[in-house]
């Protein structure tokens, strides 16, 4: 009996998961734009799941991040190891278990590239970048923006980036970064606080 119920539910389950193209993309763009403008701060826990074709197991990391306009980001891993990256406008500080390293984003191409992606993904504004072509999808729970790299460097790093927004478009819910060989990084955000007060000294690392 249970099997029959499951069998009968399959079409509905798969329907609810499947995505269709968004008809009014202009309206969705406006909603994201308005979300981005009205968001002054975001605070959230995250789970990062890395699937490498070379490994049968997933690499799972957990942490917490705080974003504050403009260009202030504290991205902190608590497990499996402690790792902190703080972006304070043009300065980047990385603190691992052994060392604290400071970079000037303008003189370091590696971190400039990484930080551009992080900040624009967290804010949901990455779709405005001319480095990507965007396709818009939706299902009952999410809007999905499929970002296809258009420039050589980005194409070498990612096959595509999927950005998920809840249907009320209040924030980015999850991010999928898919590499050329199908290696995948999934970021899932939970316990979000939008526009809660954030003290700026958390973005200063001495």
């Amino acid at each position, binding site marked *: 009996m249970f099997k029959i119920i499951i069998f009968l539910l399959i079409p509905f389950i798969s329907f609810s998961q499947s995505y269709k193209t968004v008809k009014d993309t202009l309206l969705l763009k406006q909603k994201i734009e308005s979300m981005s403008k009205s968001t002054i701060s975001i605070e959230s826990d995250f789970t990062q799941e890395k699937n490498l074709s*070379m490994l*049968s197991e997933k690499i799972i990391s957990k942490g917490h991040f705080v974003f504050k306009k403009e260009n202030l980001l504290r991205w902190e891993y608590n497990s499996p190891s402690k790792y902190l990256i703080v972006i304070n406008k043009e300065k980047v500080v990385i603190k691992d278990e052994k060392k604290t390293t400071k970079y000037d984003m303008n003189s370091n191409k590696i971190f*400039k590239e990484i930080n551009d992606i992080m900040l624009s993904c967290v804010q949901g504004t990455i779709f405005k970048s001319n480095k990507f072509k965007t396709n818009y999808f939706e299902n009952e729970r999410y809007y999905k923006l499929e970002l296809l790299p258009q420039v050589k460097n980005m194409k070498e*790093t990612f096959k595509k980036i999927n950005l998920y927004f809840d249907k009320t478009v209040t924030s980015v819910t999850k991010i999928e970064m898919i590499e*050329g060989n199908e290696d995948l990084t999934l*970021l899932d955000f939970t316990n979000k606080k939008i526009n809660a007060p954030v003290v700026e000294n958390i973005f200063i690392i001495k």
Partner: protein
Amino acid sequence: MRRLLKIYLLLSSIFVFSGCSISKYNHHNCDKIVLNETFIEPVINYSSVLKYNASVDVLKNHLTGLLIVKQTDSITKHLVFVTELGMKMFDFEVKNNQINTAYIFEPLNKPKMVDALKRNFSDMFMLSGFGNNDCKYETTNEIIYTSKRNKTKHCFIVSKTAGLTTQETFHKQKKTTKINYSYNAITKTYSQIKCKQYGLIKFYFELNEPQIVQ
């Protein structure tokens, strides 16, 4: 005149120092051998995947993350470095003692950087095989193996109790790299590998606490 004397003393001390460091491996009474994995425990085990906590200091960059080493088929190995943020920095493929770049994060893709990464990983993991002019001699506590290929000489110090402890590489008599190994006899893996490259471009690699994934 005083300044010239200072420069002369500095240069001569460098010459004496570098001469000493290679000369300690120049033994005329060594046994000629064909060096292979029966003499030195290899870093990569053919049946497993190795995951190292890695830190790489390259030029002004300090990168940390996971280095995954995997034998993908009988002749191919892959070295993949992934940062904490989940971003892949490079994927090197090793086939027939040659390291090729399968992927490198674009800002790292500079010829000198790529060459140094390949050369140091090749040395650390002893990937490029050994030469054909190998030599072995013993001291009270150690066995020293030297292997020469073209103008590069690799010197391996194997402790009689702790296994491989050091590898020093010399190019045209000048020390280019020093690698320290800590061997764990229980897990049969190298629990720590530290590699320091000398010269104008400074590189430092540290690999720790490997986890074996079957």
